[in-house]
């Protein structure tokens, strides 16, 4: 059964009660405290914001087809890339995996009935929507031209546009992140099922734990920093104003104290997702489980000590440059450990290439490339050359889009049968996954080249010798757009017409696969008991490839 694309559902048997059909009114969705439904609400919301942010950068890429200003004014250009950055960072990437897959899966994976504070979880979604819709309104109605970084004194004294309102929106959304973090930490500490010891937790749960710690410790600092911007801009309090002796560099320190760890808020969950996917589709135990756990925690901790690498050209002391550069190299070590361990997990695995696996493979390649170019930027002399060029843009898009978005889509496909009880059309999904990788590389590889050659970021009008790279990049962005719209269509189709999935279509281990699809409202019928560690796909001792602890079930795509 390789191509099950258009196989219709078998004659509808009466479905048992599950979290989707228990209550179906809109009101029941808006007042739900079920972590699964909140996960779905978040998925719909951030998908919407993803396409808004994508639309904004679509116009920018179109504009950059020629070296002149063609479609939009200089001011509109600034506002478009600011809209793209603000929406994508705070209203897509930061919440992306934790609030969607994390909300749905953390309680299921540890054998709990819900997160620790279900009402706080719902409040988190409302705070998110309040902040997000308000910010969106502000960005469209008047706009902000500071970029997503809100640097002072541009943001406080000079920028026209609605800086204070946008900062307020992000501030509110920050508390939704904190609420999610509090919930995950309390849930993972307090609600593990009998026998689910810390070192039996799936790596996805560990990644959610690590990311929650980062969210809890970093987000409040951003909140205060935005509040200070607000106070300075609206109430005239001199906080960062150099005219009164204030220190704009202090703003940068505070901002990056959040925003570098925020990068790990975006990538740690992705690492958790691909760990689940690799083990399942290679039918292998994860290589070096404890190392993977400690690597996640090490990234979370060391990630807090490297923010100064954003300020090498900002007039920081040479000693600070040295220390931050050194620590930025150090933080690459646990990431490298993870890459090696994923590769080792695949080694001698019985690999099959379903769509989630394709996305995960894409993640591995693109994350590695993005990570390696991060080392260029961590080195002070190279960074002085590369700072504020397209090289930086390419670097973090390789991590954020090549890494996080790939993993997000991989996770959505992998757990789609669990969310909806339906299979997605495999061929379409494979096609979309491959299209995404092609589109991605076409878009961002040229940006490394032109960045290295000196093309600065955030410029609308540029030297003609860079045009060829910009044209390739824009064409890539169109391919990418197609690759993102495809899942929207075929996943929507599969909601109605997809083949019924059964409880465990991938033959995966993990508690979430031990219950029906879609799961009942209380997740499990009874409380599950855990007697072994995660990923028992394959006996560790007999790694010959002939024996399997959990054979592929019949009916899976082979």
């Amino acid at each position, binding site marked *: 059964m390789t191509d099950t694309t258009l196989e219709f559902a078998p004659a509808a048997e009466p479905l048992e009660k599950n979290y989707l059909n228990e209550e179906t009114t809109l009101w029941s969705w808006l007042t739900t*405290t079920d972590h699964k439904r909140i996960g779905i609400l978040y998925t719909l919301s951030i998908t919407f914001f993803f396409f808004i942010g994508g639309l904004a950068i679509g116009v920018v890429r179109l504009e950059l087809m020629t070296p002149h200003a063609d479609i939009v004014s200089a001011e509109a250009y600034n506002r478009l890339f600011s809209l793209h950055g603000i929406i994508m960072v705070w209203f897509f990437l930061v919440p992306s995996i934790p609030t969607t897959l994390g909300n749905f899966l953390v*309680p299921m994976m540890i054998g*709990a*009935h*819900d*997160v*620790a*504070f*279900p009402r*706080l979880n719902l409040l988190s979604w409302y705070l998110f929507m309040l902040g997000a819709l308000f910010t969106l309104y502000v960005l469209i109605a008047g706009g902000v031209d500071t970029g997503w970084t809100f640097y002072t004194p541009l943001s406080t004294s000079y920028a026209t546009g609605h800086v204070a309102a946008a900062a307020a929106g992000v501030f509110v959304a920050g508390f939704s992140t*904190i609420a999610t*973090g*509090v*919930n995950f*930490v*309390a849930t993972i*500490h*307090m*609600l593990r099922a009998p026998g689910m010891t810390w070192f039996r937790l799936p790596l996805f749960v560990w990644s959610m734990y690590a990311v929650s710690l980062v969210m*809890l*410790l*970093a*987000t*409040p*600092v951003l*909140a*205060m*920093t935005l*509040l*200070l911007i607000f*106070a*300075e801009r609206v*109430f*005239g*309090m*001199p*906080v960062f104003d150099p*005219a*009164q*002796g*204030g*220190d704009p560099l*202090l703003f940068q320190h*505070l901002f990056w104290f959040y925003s570098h760890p925020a990068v790990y808020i975006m990538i740690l969950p992705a690492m958790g997702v691909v760990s689940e996917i690799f083990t399942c589709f290679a039918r292998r135990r994860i290589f070096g489980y404890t190392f993977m756990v400690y690597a996640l925690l090490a990234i979370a901790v060391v990630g807090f000590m490297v923010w100064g690498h954003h300020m090498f050209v900002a007039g920081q002391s040479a000693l600070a440059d040295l220390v931050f550069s050194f620590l930025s190299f150090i933080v690459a070590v646990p990431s490298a450990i993870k890459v090696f361990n994923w590769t080792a997990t695949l080694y001698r695995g019985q690999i099959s290439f379903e769509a989630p696996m394709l996305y995960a493979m894409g993640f591995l390649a693109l994350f590695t490339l993005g990570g390696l170019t991060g080392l260029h930027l961590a080195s002070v002399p190279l960074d002085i050359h590369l700072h504020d060029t397209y090289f930086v843009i390419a670097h973090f898009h390789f991590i954020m889009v090549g890494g996080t978005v790939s993993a997000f889509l991989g996770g959505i496909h992998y757990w789609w049968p669990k969310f909806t009880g339906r299979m997605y059309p495999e061929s379409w999904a494979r096609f979309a996954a491959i299209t995404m990788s092609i589109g991605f590389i076409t878009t961002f590889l040229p940006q490394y080249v032109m960045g290295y050659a000196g093309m600065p970021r955030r410029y609308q009008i540029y030297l003609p010798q860079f045009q060829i790279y910009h044209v390739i990049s824009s064409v890539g962005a169109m391919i990418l757009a197609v690759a993102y719209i495809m899942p929207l269509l075929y996943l929507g189709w599969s909601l109605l017409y997809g083949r019924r999935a059964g409880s465990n279509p991938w033959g995966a281990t993990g508690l979430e696969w031990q219950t029906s699809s879609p799961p009942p409202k*209380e997740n499990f019928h009874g*409380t599950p008991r855990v007697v072994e560690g995660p990923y028992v796909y394959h006996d560790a001792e007999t790694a010959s490839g002939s024996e399997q602890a959990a054979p592929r079930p019949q009916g899976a795509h082979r």
Partner: protein
Amino acid sequence: MSDSATILREPWPNIERQRYGAAFGIWIFLVTEMLFFGALFLNYAVNRSLHPEAFRIASHETDIVYGTANTLILLTSSLVMTLAERVAAANWRRLALTCLIVTASLGLAFLVVKGFEYSDDLSKGLLPGPNFALEPPSTQLFWGLYWIMTVVHAIHLTVGIGLVVWLSVLIARRVVPLGTTASEVISLYWHFVDVIWLTVYALIYLPGVA
């Protein structure tokens, strides 16, 4: 303890675990609050080390009387809040309710004193802006932080007062039992807001009399 009367909610397996979980949750939240205020205190530390002389001049203008009175009020309120907890554990309903109401009233008293202090500050021209009374310009940094710190603290306190009032109404109407999980959570928050004030007091008022 009136534990048996507390409602067991999903997803907790039993009351003790739920109680422990709620306390754990609020502790995590308070850690984030520490970082929230921490960013503000860092700002103070950096600017004070950059402009020691301006901070010396500016801090002389704060009014230690208001500051000390408010410190005493808040410390007393925390004491009464703790009493409320203990009395509730002994199941003395009326006294526990009285303690909660006294706590909220002391919180209000703090805000009233703060209001008088603000109007004094305004009349002395201590709001940063074009008509600011002090020289050099970097004294405005101190006073900017003064306003931001005290206002953010006052907002936290207002939330605290609201929570305590809400709790006492629920207890008075017997919607929740004495010693419910919420009261522990609210009292932890109340004490935290108190601790923040102590830090603000040390940073804002004490340098002026040193």
